[in-house]
């Protein structure tokens, strides 16, 4: 049995130390606290910084935990926070598209709806915040599968078959994989009557300032309104992508 690796133990100690304080720590403080030579501490910090587990404040040069560590455990961005930040943009997407808008985040191999704006026609609609939807049969889910590394499609192989909801639901892994590469290339995804017959959804990824995908925003509505010749209407696609970019900008993502 191989022995313990000292540098990993030391790296763990650095992370624990940084997690304990609510402000950043200087190199000197870190090396004193852990009784490590400054050079050793700096080497560990630089390596952790390289893999995204530690960040350095550009002003004070103090070190603190990076987003990479946070994303290991709980989801980095709170769903309620995402809703608060996206509120105005989701409203404006509903206004421009004339359709209902939903924002979804990944929740244990499903899409959790964290925000819902009604279709602006004053018909009776029910708020479906909190609903869980399948990843492979919705535009929101496909976007998360395509752009969120934590939402890998592999688990389907372990869990068995892709469930079918309509004759158009994608049930083959190869077809799904092909669609996801297409989504990665084009920056958006759609479901055309794959969850509910007669209904179409279009979605695009929301990214934070590290470029990580933290959720998806999209519209959903009748196939007659959202599709042209069986293909998603490109005008609607551009509204969705504009909204996704606007929310991402608000979260600090650089425009791409």
């Amino acid at each position, binding site marked *: 049995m191989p022995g313990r690796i000292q540098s990993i133990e030391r790296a763990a100690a650095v992370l624990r130390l940084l997690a304990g304080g609510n402000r950043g720590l200087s190199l000197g403080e870190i090396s004193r606290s852990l009784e490590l030579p400054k050079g050793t501490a700096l080497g560990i910090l630089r390596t952790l910084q390289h893999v995204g587990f530690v960040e350095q404040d550009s002003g004070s040069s103090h070190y603190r935990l990076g987003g990479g560590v946070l994303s290991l455990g709980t989801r980095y961005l*709170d769903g*309620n926070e995402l*809703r*608060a930040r996206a509120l105005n943009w989701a*409203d404006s997407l509903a206004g421009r598209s004339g359709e209902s808008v939903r924002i979804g985040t990944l929740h244990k191999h499903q899409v959790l709806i964290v925000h819902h704006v*009604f279709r602006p026609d004053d018909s009776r*609609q029910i*708020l479906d915040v909190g609903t869980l939807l399948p990843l492979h049969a919705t535009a929101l889910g496909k976007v998360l599968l395509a752009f969120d590394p934590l939402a890998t499609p592999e688990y389907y192989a372990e869990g068995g078959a892709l469930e079918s909801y309509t004759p158009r639901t994608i049930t083959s892994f190869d077809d799904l994989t092909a669609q996801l590469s297409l989504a990665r290339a084009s920056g958006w995804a759609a479901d055309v009557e794959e969850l509910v017959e007669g209904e179409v959804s279009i979605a695009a990824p929301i990214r934070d300032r590290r470029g990580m995908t933290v959720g998806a925003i999209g519209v959903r509505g009748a196939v007659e309104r959202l599709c042209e010749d069986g293909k998603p209407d490109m005008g609607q696609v551009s509204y969705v992508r504009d909204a996704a970019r606007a929310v991402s900008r608000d979260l600090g993502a650089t425009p791409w």
Partner: protein
Amino acid sequence: MTQQYVAAIDQGTTSSRCIIFDRDGRIVSVGQREHRQIFPQPGWVEHDAAEIWDGVQQVVHEALEKGDITPDQLAAVGITNQRETTVVWDRETGEPVHNAIVWQDTRTDDLIRRLGGVVGQERFRERCGLPLATYFAGPKLRWLLDEVPGLRERAERGEVLFGTMDSWIIWKLTGQHITDVTNASRTMLMNLHTLQWDPEILDAIGIPAAVLPEIRSSAEVYGEATGFLAGVPVASALGDQHAALFGQTCFSPGEVKGTYGTGTFLVLNTGTEPVMSANGLLTTLGYKIGDQPAVYALEGAVAVTGSLVQWLRDNLGLIASAPEIETLALTVEDNGGCYIVPAFSGLFAPHWRSDARGVITGLTGYVNKGHLARAVLEASAWQTREVVDAMNTDSGIPLTSLKVDGGMTADNLLMQTLADVLDVEVVRPMVAETTCLGAAYAAGLAVGYWKDMESLRANWHKAAEWSPRMDPKVREREYRNWTKAVQRTLGWVEHDEQPQD
């Protein structure tokens, strides 16, 4: 023909904004700029009116530029503003003679007591709808006339002009010295029935009529802008809460809007007659559109709602950001028997008890931080319930639905709790920027950009709706517990004056 738009300038307490709207009431572009808060001594808050005017010009430029819109594409510009903040400027030079005194400023505390005399706070309520309090503009103006050397004499000679922020901006834009009925209704100087300055109050407070602007309706062309917006009609002015009422299209008696920010402002449309409150609400103007009869309103403010969430974040450190309150609250099923009454500086409407201080009550070993988070959200809901009950009693019109706006409407659990404790539908409209929208609507109506108020209603769309789901028995029990918790706050500050009712 090129596309026409309407611009709204929102001169707020911490920032000025300009939002440009299209004919469907949708946001085209936004410009925003913050200004300095000046604190010369404890309790005093001032703004530099010249800095604010610079900021207003910049945000209008910014909004035009972002929307790729030229000034000749603006059918009208409307104004909404922080209320009660008081400016006095030189008629000749256009320079403010002193920093603006902001609505939160309490320097008129002693003056208010003296003005109340033997009658007390209610001395002018019958005429102006308001109790004597430090917020309102009239006493702030009196303070300036007393304290700035030579100002009273200059005021009597008509060399200086008074205005709230609407007047200051209209004057800068058009050269006209004008205010609207809603802003005038917050000075304590306007008679609610005549909608003119009340000579008796002016005499009692000691204000020379020569400094006062002309009171006009909230929606009419006050004049054409000169300078950078040359030729654009300046066509509306509404205090921020009144603009939100109008932007929410609460055009019928009985309709209520609630704006949820750091505090909460509830405004009820009471129709074309003022309703005097027997329950501690303010009687104010809703709006007045051109020659149509003025519409009155009852207003109830809750001092601490969103700021209680901030307190949980900043003072207790239980959450990292305000929206996380919902995440924390959802870790538990209910409040675990715990209630928080945030009477940080006494209780406002409908209690008006300055001797009250906040409590956390019902604590047992079982209560955890999730229960505290629930109690924080429920406090906003129950405080709303108390104001709504007062409104129902005063107006005799039972509430059927509440139209909400403001940052806290992003909190679904709070919105559901509101529906549960009020036992009415809670509705959020699609454009949350109802304050700017209200000013834009009023300006657009004045120039015929929108045909009538019905066409504005057609622009109003539900973005979300919450229905009551609470068992009536639970609601009754919880309200009883809340009321008990409120009782626990009373009489804490001993040296304070005896409360009046």
